[in-house]
């Protein structure tokens, strides 16, 4: 199965790093095939930043998004700019600190809020990754952990792993809330 | 002192003489003085490379019985940088001209100096593009006639030695072909300096430049270089003349030594 993931945000939020960690987790530790591409140049400075990851069980020929299965956004500008070519039933993840939740339902993960509570706002990307993995199962949490361990500098490792676990927790909670919401609206 | 026959036998590639250069061209004098400097220093010629660009000056590398690289127009310093950086054990001499070095290759000159790579650059400044028949060059003096300044030249010329000094070359000297003994001494010093040495030689182009600019006899040309230059030590008394001599001699860290230090630091 081919899954197309787009992660967006503003420069400095660690969007590219999140994409790299995700792709690496899938390809190196989950034994799947994965490609990652990212935006460059003026596009990636200050303003909106974007990375696209394809994860599949088979060879990936076309490394670009045709219709995204998962769309993640950490800033309003990036959300508006890149919320296109997204499947109707795609899993949408937003950070409520910056973006108003979608009317038709989405996963609202307070990654930035939790990151600030943990003492470092730059952890928001990892928290979001944890939630995404927890909810979509696109990669295993275990592989994400390995991906972080083999990438992040030792000094910040514990903080990042904690952030990931926090993200998983938020994911579980969001899943429960969404299930409740879905049941209520039925 | 070593004779010309001995120099010839030791350093000149067989079958290449007489040179393609015109009668009265000073380039041969620069070739001779360079070889004498090398001989006096007892350099191992097999560990030297003579790099040149394009132009009359740049033909000199082909006459020397040694490794030589006759490169593209304006780029000898770039090629030389590659050789020296890849094998710092080699001693590199660059022969270049005013058009080659200051026109098309000006950027390589200032960056070679900035980098302070250990090469000896000998610029044969003949005030024009001689090989192509005498067009104006970046060093053509004001009010000179050339084939592309038929109504005389008004562009301000470069003073190459001043340029090299300002860019920070550790060793800068300027002589003319009428000062061959001093030139040998300066080339010797330049070869010994660890870093970028810049030696400018004012050398006549009788065929293309001087024929169009007042002086038509070889004796007059030779004397012009004596009479219109002044040693740096007496420059203040004759400010209108071209200043010659050893113009700069400073210490500066050299590129290949710094690279070696870096390699030792990071490969531990």
């Amino acid at each position: 199965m081919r899954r197309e993931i787009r992660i967006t945000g503003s420069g400095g939020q660690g969007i590219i790093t999140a994409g790299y960690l995700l792709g690496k987790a899938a390809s190196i530790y989950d034994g799947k095939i994965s490609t990652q591409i990212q935006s460059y140049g003026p596009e990636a400075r200050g303003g909106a930043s974007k990375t696209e990851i394809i994860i599949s069980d088979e060879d990936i020929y076309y490394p670009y998004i045709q219709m995204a299965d998962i769309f993640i956004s950490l800033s309003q500008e990036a959300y508006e700019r890149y919320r296109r070519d997204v499947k109707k039933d795609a899993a949408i993840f937003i950070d409520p600190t910056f973006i108003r939740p979608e009317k038709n339902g989405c996963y609202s993960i307070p990654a930035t809020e939790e990151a600030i509570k943990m003492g470092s706002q730059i952890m928001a990307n990892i928290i979001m990754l944890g939630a995404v993995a927890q909810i979509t199962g696109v990669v295993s949490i275990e592989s994400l952990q390995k991906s972080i361990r083999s990438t992040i500098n030792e000094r910040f490792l514990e903080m990042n792993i904690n952030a990931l676990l926090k993200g998983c927790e938020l994911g579980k909670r969001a899943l429960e809330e969404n299930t409740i919401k879905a049941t209520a609206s039925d | 002192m070593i004779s010309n026959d001995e120099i010839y036998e030791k350093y000149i590639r067989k079958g290449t003489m007489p040179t393609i250069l015109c009668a009265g061209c000073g380039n041969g004098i620069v070739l001779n003085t360079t070889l004498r400097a090398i001989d006096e220093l007892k350099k191992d010629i097999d560990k030297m490379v003579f790099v040149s660009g394009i132009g009359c000056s740049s033909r000199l590398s082909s006459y020397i019985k040694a490794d030589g690289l006759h490169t593209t127009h304006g780029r000898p310093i770039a090629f030389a940088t590659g050789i020296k950086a890849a094998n710092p054990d080699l001693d590199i001499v660059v022969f270049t001209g005013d058009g080659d070095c200051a026109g098309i290759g000006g950027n390589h000159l200032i960056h070679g100096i900035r980098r302070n790579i250990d090469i000896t650059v000998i610029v044969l400044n003949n005030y024009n593009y001689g090989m192509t028949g005498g067009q104006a060059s970046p060093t053509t003096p004001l009010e000179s006639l050339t084939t592309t300044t038929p109504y005389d030249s008004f562009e301000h010329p470069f003073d190459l030695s001043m340029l090299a000094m300002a860019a920070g070359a550790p060793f800068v000297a300027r002589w003319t072909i009428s000062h061959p003994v001093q030139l040998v001494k300066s080339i010797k010093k330049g070869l010994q300096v660890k870093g970028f040495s810049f030696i400018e030689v004012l050398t006549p182009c009788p065929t293309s430049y001087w024929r169009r600019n007042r002086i038509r006899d070889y004796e007059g040309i030779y004397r012009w270089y004596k009479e219109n230059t002044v040693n740096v030590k007496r420059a203040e008394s004759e400010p209108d003349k071209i200043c010659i001599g050893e113009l700069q001699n400073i210490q500066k860290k050299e590129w290949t030594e710094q690279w070696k230090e870096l390699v030792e630091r990071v490969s531990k």
Partner: protein
Amino acid sequence: MITIKENYCKGCGYCIIACPTKALKRSNKINSRGIEIPIVEEEKCNKCHICELSCPDFAINVEEE
């Protein structure tokens, strides 16, 4: 001993001007390329080798006895 390689000489005469003892002078001697080559007055030579350094064509040779 001063010798001049006639076939190398291009007749610029720089050796004549450079010689401090005026041991070289112009002549009517013409080489195969139609060039006037200088002549030497050996006894005036002080073996300073300036003429050798001033020759662009390795055409002149000074040997000390």
